[in-house]
């Protein structure tokens, strides 16, 4: 009888400890997301000092001479919630964290232009980590959206 009591108390305390200890919890963590909108062009030679790390990475792939930070959107988004970043020419990037897979955040990215969906993608982004999405022409150059996350 006493043994059964011990086991019940132990089980309940383990469950309680698991509940307190689980940082991901049932609701999941909040994801800190930063969207940097960059204009890359060959019109001039300019390296925005706020993009020094990113430029080094991009220069290994692209041959643009100018990288300029146009805007930055910071957001903290809960699991299955959608954050929005306003981008040039009535573009909107919707970001929805949909899960955690090991050390990666599973994100759904949706790009809209004038309420029309351009694309939708699901990515697994490292924590912390970043992805760059680019391609739209803008002011003689191209727009790049650098999306980074951490939780």
């Amino acid at each position, binding site marked *: 009888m*006493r*043994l059964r009591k*011990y*086991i019940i108390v*132990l*089980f309940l*305390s*383990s469950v309680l*400890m*698991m509940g307190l*200890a*689980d*940082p991901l919890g049932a609701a999941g963590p909040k994801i800190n997301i930063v969207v940097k909108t960059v204009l890359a062009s060959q019109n001039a030679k300019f390296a925005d000092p706020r993009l020094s790390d990113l430029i080094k*990475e*991009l220069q*290994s*792939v692209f041959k643009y001479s100018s990288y300029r930070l146009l805007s930055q959107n910071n957001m903290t988004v809960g699991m299955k919630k959608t954050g929005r970043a306003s981008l040039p020419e009535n573009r909107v990037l919707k970001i929805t964290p949909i899960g955690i897979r*090991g*050390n*990666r955040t*599973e994100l759904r990215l949706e*790009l809209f*232009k004038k309420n*029309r*969906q*351009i*694309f*939708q*993608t*699901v*990515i*697994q*982004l*490292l*924590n912390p*980590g*970043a*992805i*760059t*999405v*680019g*391609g*739209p*022409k803008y002011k003689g150059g191209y727009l790049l959206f650098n999306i980074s996350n951490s939780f």
Partner: protein
Amino acid sequence: MKKSRRKCDPILLNKFFDKELRPDERAQMTEHLRDCPSCQKALQENESLSALFTDSLDKSVSQAIPDDFEYRIISKLETRNSKLESLIPILNSQFSILNSLKKFFIPAMATAILILFFSFTKPPASVAGPSAIVSSFTGDIASVMILETPESHQTIIWFNETF
């Protein structure tokens, strides 16, 4: 009156009383005592004093240690033994509880510790592989490329809009 062959010697007399003399000395002292009233008297005093002392000692011991002393000690020892014997089943039951706890408590605690450990610790950041894995991509676009930078494996999605 016959005269004693030896002189009166109180030390020898005491040794005679204590039976510490050699046989020849003892014979001489016995012969001396036969003829020496003073030594006879001293010997008698010694004997009476010794008797008195012995009686008193016996009396004190008999008062200090009652007749049933041995019986009482034995009975106490028996009681203690029976108490110890009665404790054995209780101790056995305690050990069985401890054994049962060992069976359940230790694995349960180990499991709880493991769960806590994996809850608090994050897996190390993997340096291998791209920064992002693209699971799916759909849209109204002309083309799409997925690139990776050579150094830090940053993932880049490059697309061409159709309009």
